C-alpha cells in the first residue's frame, strides 16, 4: 500500500468516526435537552454543522469508508450505538424514541426497495405496518406462539395482503399503483374503524414481547448498569434494523440491484434484454411490505396498543416523504431523515400544533429546490461486496 492510499483509508475511518460521533451526539443532545430555548439553539447548531460537514468532504469520505471497509464502519457504528444506549439508559422516553426511529427507518428501507430501486409507488406503507401490528394483536391471545414467530408472521401476512394488490401495481403507469395503494390504505383504515371484531376505533391491547425467556417489560441490568426497559426493545429492533440494512445493501449491490434499477428506469429496455419485469416488481413490493409488517408487529408489542388512527393516509405519506427527504435510494439518508422527522416534532414543543403544516411546506420546498434529498444516491460501484 502506498502512503497515499493509507492516508486515504485512515482519512475514511476518521471521517466515519466523526460522522458517527456527530450523529450520536446530536441524538443524545436532542433527546436529553428539555428546555425549549436550549433545544432550539442546539438544533440550529446541529443544522449549521450538518451544512458544513459535507463541504469539508467528510461525508464523502465516510461513504467511501462504508463502501471499501464495511466491517470497520459497522464496528464504529456499533460502538456508537451502544454508547448512546449507555448514556441514555435512564431516559425511558429517549429509548422509546430511538426504538420508534429505528422502526420507521426499517419500514422506509422497505419503501426504498419498492420506490427507490424498483420505482413502484406505495401509498399504503402505514397500512402494511398496521397489518403487522394487528396480526400481533390478534395472535396475542395465542400464548403458545413464540413472539419471534408472531413477528415474522406479521411480515408474512402483510406481504400476502400486498399480493392482492399486485396486479394494478405491476402496470407500467405509476398512477395505477399510486391509486391502488392509496385506496388500499383508506380501505384498511375504514375497515378497521368500522369493524368491532378488530377493536374498532378504540383499538386493542397488545401483549409485550417475551423472548429468550426474558420479559421485555423488565428493566435490563448489564454489569453495574441498569437500562430502562425500553432498552430491550431498542436492542431487538436495532438488531432487526441492522439485518435489514444489510439485506438492502446486498440487494442493491448485486445483479438484482441492477435489474431493479433497470426496471425502474426503462421497462421496455429491461424486458427486451430478458428481464421479466413483473417478477422483479413483485419481489420489491413483497419484500418491502414484509419489512413493514415485521416492524408493525414489533411496534404494536412495544407500545402495547394498536388503533386505526395510527395508520392513516397521512402516515403513509409521511413514509414516502421520509424516503424522498433522505435522498431516494440512499439507505443512510433514510435513517437520518427518519431521525429528523420523528424527533423534531416530538421535542420541539412550540411547533407541535403546526408540525404537519411545517412538514408539508418543508417537503414542498425540498421538491422544488433540492429534489435529490439530503444524501444523494451514489452510482453503484461493485468494489466491495461484503
Amino acid at each position, binding site marked *: 500500500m502506498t502512503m497515499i492510499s493509507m492516508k486515504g483509508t485512515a482519512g475514511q475511518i476518521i471521517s466515519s468516526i466523526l460522522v458517527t460521533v456527530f450523529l450520536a451526539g446530536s441524538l443524545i443532545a436532542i433527546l436529553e435537552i428539555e428546555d425549549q430555548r436550549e433545544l432550539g439553539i442546539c438544533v440550529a447548531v446541529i443544522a449549521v454543522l450538518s451544512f458544513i460537514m459535507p463541504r469539508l468532504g467528510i461525508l464523502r469520505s465516510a461513504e467511501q469508508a462504508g463502501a471499501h471497509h464495511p466491517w470497520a464502519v459497522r464496528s464504529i457504528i456499533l460502538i456508537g450505538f451502544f454508547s448512546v444506549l449507555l448514556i441514555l439508559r435512564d431516559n425511558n422516553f429517549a429509548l422509546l424514541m430511538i426504538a420508534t426511529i429505528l422502526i420507521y427507518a426499517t419500514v422506509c428501507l422497505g419503501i426504498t426497495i419498492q420506490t427507490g430501486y424498483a420505482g413502484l409507488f406505495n401509498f399504503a406503507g402505514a397500512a402494511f405496518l398496521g397489518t403487522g401490528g394487528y396480526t400481533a394483536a390478534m395472535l396475542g391471545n395465542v400464548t403458545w406462539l413464540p413472539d419471534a414467530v408472531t413477528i415474522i408472521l406479521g411480515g408474512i401476512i402483510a406481504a400476502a395482503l400486498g399480493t392482492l394488490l399486485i396486479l394494478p401495481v405491476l402496470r407500467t403507469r405509476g398512477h395505477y399503483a399510486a391509486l391502488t395503494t392509496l385506496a388500499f390504505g383508506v380501505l384498511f383504515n375504514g375497515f378497521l374503524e368500522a369493524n368491532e371484531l378488530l377493536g374498532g376505533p378504540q383499538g386493542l391491547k397488545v401483549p409485550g414481547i417475551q423472548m429468550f425467556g426474558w420479559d421485555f417489560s423488565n428493566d435490563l441490568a448489564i454489569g453495574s448498569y441498569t437500562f430502562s426497559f425500553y432498552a430491550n426493545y431498542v436492542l431487538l429492533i436495532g438488531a432487526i434494523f441492522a439485518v435489514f440494512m444489510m*439485506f438492502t445493501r*446486498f*440487494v442493491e449491490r*448485486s*445483479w*438484482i440491484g*441492477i*435489474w431493479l*434499477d*433497470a426496471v425502474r*428506469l*426503462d421497462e*421496455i*429496455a*429491461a*424486458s*427486451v*434484454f*430478458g*428481464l*421479466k*419485469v413483473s417478477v422483479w416488481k413483485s*419481489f420489491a413490493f413483497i419484500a418491502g411490505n414484509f419489512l413493514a409488517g415485521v416492524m408493525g408487529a414489533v411496534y404494536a408489542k412495544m407500545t402495547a396498543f394498536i388503533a386505526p388512527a395510527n395508520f392513516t393516509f397521512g402516515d403513509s405519506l409521511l413514509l414516502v416523504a421520509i424516503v424522498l427527504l433522505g435522498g431516494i435510494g440512499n439507505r443512510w439518508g433514510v435513517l437520518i431523515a427518519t431521525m429528523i422527522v420523528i424527533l423534531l416534532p416530538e421535542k420541539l414543543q412550540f411547533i407541535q400544533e403546526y408540525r404537519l403544516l411545517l412538514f408539508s411546506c418543508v417537503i414542498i420546498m425540498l421538491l422544488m429546490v433540492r429534489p435529490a434529498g439530503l444524501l444523494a444516491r451514489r*452510482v*453503484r*460501484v*461493485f468494489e466491495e*461486496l*461484503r
Partner: protein
Amino acid sequence: MVAQSNDVIPLVASGLSVKFGGLLALNELNIEVRRGEVLGLIGPNGSGKTTFFNVISGIYAASAGKVLLDGQDITTLKPYQIAAHGLARTFQRSRLCLSLSVFDNLMLGAVRRLNSGLWYNLLRRDRLAVDVRSAAEEARDLLAVFNPDLAGKLWEPAISLGMIDRRRLEICRALIGRPKIVLLDEPSAGMTHDETNQLMNEILEVRQNLGNLTIVIVEHEMGLIERATDRCVVLNYGKKICEGKYADIAADPLVREAYLGKS
C-alpha cells in the same frame, strides 16, 4: 460458444404484417436472415424498418404472419422470452439507463448469462464477487475494442459519456450477452462520415471475435451499407421491394423511385 446447427435459418419472417389501427405498417413481409451474414435493412423514413425490429423483439404484436428464430416460433412471445432465445438489439432512440454506471448498463445486456437467484445474490457473496470481477474484465475487453478510454470508465455513470461513446455502449450491451443474432437500429445516426466508418470497423472486428455473429443493420448511410453488408433488403411502405447485394439494389429502378420519387 455452443455450436449452432448450420441448416436452420437464424431469422425468418413470413407473411409478417403489423397494423396500427387503420395503418398497415408492415405488409406481408418475407425476410430471411442467413447465418453469419450482415444484412442491411434500408428504405426511406417510415418504411417500417424500426417497426420490423420492434415486432421481432416482441414490443409490437404482429397482426398476421410468423417470425421464426432458429426455427422456433417467437411470433407471440414476450420480449423477455425472445431475449432468452438469443436475440439482442439496439434502439434508434438511445435507451441507456443514464444514471447507472457503464458496467450496470452493460450487464443489462448479459441478463441471460448471469445468475439472478435470490440465494446466490444475497448469500453467496463470495461467488458473486468472483463473477463480478470476471464480468468487469470481459466488459473492459469488449469496450476496449471500440474505445480504450471507455474501458477505463466502467464505473462512471452513463450520462457522463459523449454521444458516440453512448452509442458504443449500447452496441456493446447488445453484444455482451453472446446473442445469436443482433439487430442494430441506425447505430451511426448523428455521426460524421469518419465516425461512422470507425464505428463500422469496430463492429466488424467484434463480430469476427464472436465467431461471425449474424447482424441485421438499419442504416441510412449507403457507403456503410455498401462496405459492411453481405446483402440488403429494401422496404417501402412496409413492403419489401427489393433484395440482393448492394450493387444490385442500388441500380434497381424501384429502389430509386422509393427514395427519389417518380421522375
